């Protein structure tokens, strides 16, 4: 019995001790030390900082159903005195969004509920959304911001642009993106030569540094088979016109004259606004620097004559060239844009089964996803859908044998930079992205999240306008590929001006003159309006349509034109608002904005008035400041500008 008593007493004491450890463990929680340290840290600061009351703090965001306890340790987020304090006490940057309104994890990810460091950054074992590295932060903007251009998120915007331009849609399904135009391959066998094609397939960027065509890392065999397959497509949907025999039979002198003419037209048509020459110039279209070593002259002649006949949908205008001019341009290209260093591939006898094998390769790499060829579409086995890739759980990712960080951002970035890193059997091509570009795309992809955001917080994209101009204007717009550079009623690519309100802005006579001889209002820009060599009736059709459609009555306004007002306006222009800082009149003034020399003949007074009142309402994002002008002042300046003829 005595032993039993001893055992009893000992066990009871042990019982007490063991059960007392649990509250002790609670008492020594990690976050408490951070708060105590915060109080000692702030006590030494010269500024008065309110000490934190020891206890778990949290931000409860009801609308997002999130509880973020990050503020338990990050106590000084709103304390300006701690701007340069070490983490976790540093002040949070001033943002458009308040931390108290949105919490932390909606942007930063990580585990909001956690009160321990490793758990909160999501590096604990069972949390599928670890904290986003700073470089990828903008991905979180995309959770709510579905609009085209997200303010304050340049990386995200760049990423989305790259996804569009790289035509990821060719293989992946991603909601919210549309496929870009890519050359059609029908008749490619009569368009290009074998040497070029082999070089191109092996290394597209070697031919055209700015090309969007990725490197599929084909083996020599694959390249040859694919080239044989493609070259077997020799028939165009429309027959090629023969090149007039004159070019071949012309004398040297006549030829030189033609080349001279072609060179002039090539410049006047401002081809380099869109086409780069050996990497210099525009970025919209194909590099022309070595075009003569690639394309058959007969095809070039036919294509420039009527681009859409051979490449439906191509955003290249049909210039109104005469036959001589066409011949000249082709001759000019033939003489100028030759690749003397082009490597000749070794002689090669086609495999008897090249067609079937080539077709299989064409399918394997989903060439049909981008390029149309004889009705062969996208590959049946598609690449994974990326619509909600940002919500992919870590345990769903196969990192293979790669040694990279086991996180989704690093997975995506690595995949973009080295597409075959995780498994050599993958088919994704290499786009040659720079590190920044890959990061930007990863950011945009991470933003494709399946996170449920309440409707009132979503910023939706502007509905994509399906503006299809009709009639003669429509035909001309199609023929001249205006949408390639101009936006009209929400459709088109914005390289040049948005024309939706053009007739409210510019006077008819000026527009007509501009079509005849385009000139650039801003000489600093590379992209310029080409001279399309339009005829009088065509110009009339265009301007007539603009006068009826691209005009808003609300922008009409009568402005007094008495000398007093004009003098007043002149004073305001030069003395009060210093407009000459950016706009030139005569030879004086800056050239940030367009010169206002002939503003009175170019612009309409209502436009000037409304522009002065609120420039951003007419052209979002313009750097012309809103000066909050009273009506009288805006009228006076308008009156002054209208006198400049």
């Amino acid at each position: 019995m005595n032993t039993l008593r001893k055992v009893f007493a000992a066990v009871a004491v042990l019982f007490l001790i063991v059960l007392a450890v649990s509250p002790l463990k609670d008492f020594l929680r990690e976050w408490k030390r951070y708060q105590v340290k915060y109080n000692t840290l702030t006590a030494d600061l010269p500024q008065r900082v309110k000490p934190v009351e020891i206890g778990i703090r949290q931000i409860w965001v009801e609308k997002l159903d999130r509880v973020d306890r990050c503020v338990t340790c990050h106590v000084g987020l709103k304390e300006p005195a701690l701007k340069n304090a070490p983490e976790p006490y540093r002040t949070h940057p001033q943002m458009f969004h308040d931390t108290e309104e949105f919490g932390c994890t909606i942007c930063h990810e990580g585990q909001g509920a956690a009160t321990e460091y490793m758990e909160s950054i999501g590096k604990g074992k069972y949390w599928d959304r670890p904290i986003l590295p700073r470089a990828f932060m903008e991905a979180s903007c995309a959770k709510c911001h579905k609009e085209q251009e997200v303010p304050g998120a340049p990386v995200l915007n760049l990423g989305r642009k790259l996804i569009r331009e790289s035509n990821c849609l060719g293989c992946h399904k991603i909601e919210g993106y549309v496929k870009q135009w890519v050359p059609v391959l029908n008749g490619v066998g009569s368009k290009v030569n074998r040497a070029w094609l082999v070089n191109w397939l092996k290394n597209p960027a070697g031919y055209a540094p700015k090309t969007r065509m990725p490197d599929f890392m084909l083996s020599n065999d694959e390249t040859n088979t694919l080239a044989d397959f493609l070259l077997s497509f020799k028939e165009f949907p429309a027959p090629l016109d023969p090149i007039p025999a004159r070019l071949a039979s012309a004398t040297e002198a006549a030829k030189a004259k033609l080349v001279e003419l072609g060179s002039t037209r090539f410049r006047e048509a401002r081809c380099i606004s869109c086409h780069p020459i050996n990497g210099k110039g525009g970025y919209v279209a194909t590099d022309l620097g070595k075009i003569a070593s690639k394309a058959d002259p007969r095809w070039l002649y036919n294509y420039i004559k009527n681009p859409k006949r051979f490449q439906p949908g191509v955003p290249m205008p049909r210039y109104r060239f005469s036959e001589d001019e066409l011949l000249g341009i082709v001759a000019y290209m033939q003489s100028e844009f030759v690749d003397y260093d082009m490597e000749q591939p070794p002689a090669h006898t086609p495999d008897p089964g090249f067609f079937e094998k080539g077709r299989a390769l064409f399918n394997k790499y989903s060439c049909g996803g981008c390029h149309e060829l004889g009705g062969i579409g996208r590959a049946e086995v598609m690449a994974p859908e990326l619509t909600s890739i940002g919500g992919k759980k870590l345990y769903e990712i196969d990192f293979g044998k790669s040694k990279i960080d086991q996180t989704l951002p690093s997975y995506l970035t690595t995949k973009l930079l080295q597409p075959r890193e995780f498994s050599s059997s993958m088919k994704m091509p290499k786009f040659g992205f720079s590190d920044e570009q890959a990061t930007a795309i990863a950011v945009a992809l991470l933003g494709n999240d399946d996170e449920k955001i309440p409707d009132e917080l979503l910023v939706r994209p502007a509905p994509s306008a399906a503006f299809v101009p009709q009639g003669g204007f429509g035909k001309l717009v199609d023929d001249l590929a205006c949408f390639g550079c101009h936006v009209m009623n929400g459709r088109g690519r914005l390289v040049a001006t948005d024309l939706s309100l053009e007739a409210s802005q510019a006077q008819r006579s000026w527009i007509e003159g501009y079509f005849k001889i385009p000139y650039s209002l801003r000489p600093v820009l590379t992209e310029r309006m080409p001279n399309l060599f339009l005829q009088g009736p065509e110009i009339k059709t265009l301007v007539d349509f603009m006068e009826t459609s691209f005009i808003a009555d609300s922008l009409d306004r009568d402005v007094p034109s008495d000398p007093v007002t004009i003098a007043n306006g002149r004073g305001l222009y030069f003395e009060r608002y210093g407009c000459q800082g950016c706009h030139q009149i005569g030879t004086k003034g800056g050239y940030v904005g367009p010169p206002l020399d002939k503003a009175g003949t170019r612009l309409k007074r209502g436009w000037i008035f409304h522009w002065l009142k609120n420039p951003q309402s007419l052209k979002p994002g313009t750097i012309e400041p809103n000066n909050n002008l009273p009506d009288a002042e805006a009228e006076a300046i308008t009156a002054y500008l209208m006198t400049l003829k």
Partner: protein
Amino acid sequence: MRSLFFVCILCALFVVGCKGTRPQPEEETRQSVRVPDSTIQPAVALPGKTSSYEERQGAFLYGKYCAVCHGQEGKGDGFNAFNLDPRPRDFSDSASMKRLSDGQIIQTISGGGRSVNKSPLMPSYGWTLSRQQILYLADFVRSRSTDF
């Protein structure tokens, strides 16, 4: 009873401390604070990744609105600067920048040169940019002169 209980807690702390069944708290703190940035940084390094959000916003806005006259580096040598008289301010000149208060800088951006009795060639952005954006810009402008 409660005090006795806490005495027992202390005993328990002692016993447990000796046995070391719990991870040492001190060490844990140091570890968690010292986790190097690289563990949460991507394999790819972005240029300027060390810059803060405010700096990047400031740089972006500056590049868009200010650099044409004040120059990319803030030296008052933008491509448009040579059309202006007086010349735009050189933000890297710390001697003259020291004389400006934060309030003056913010006022100049918001109200333009005329609002601080300077040249009207400096336009006012108070109705174009938000208060927040102007604060970013003011900070960025301030950071152009190094030895402030």
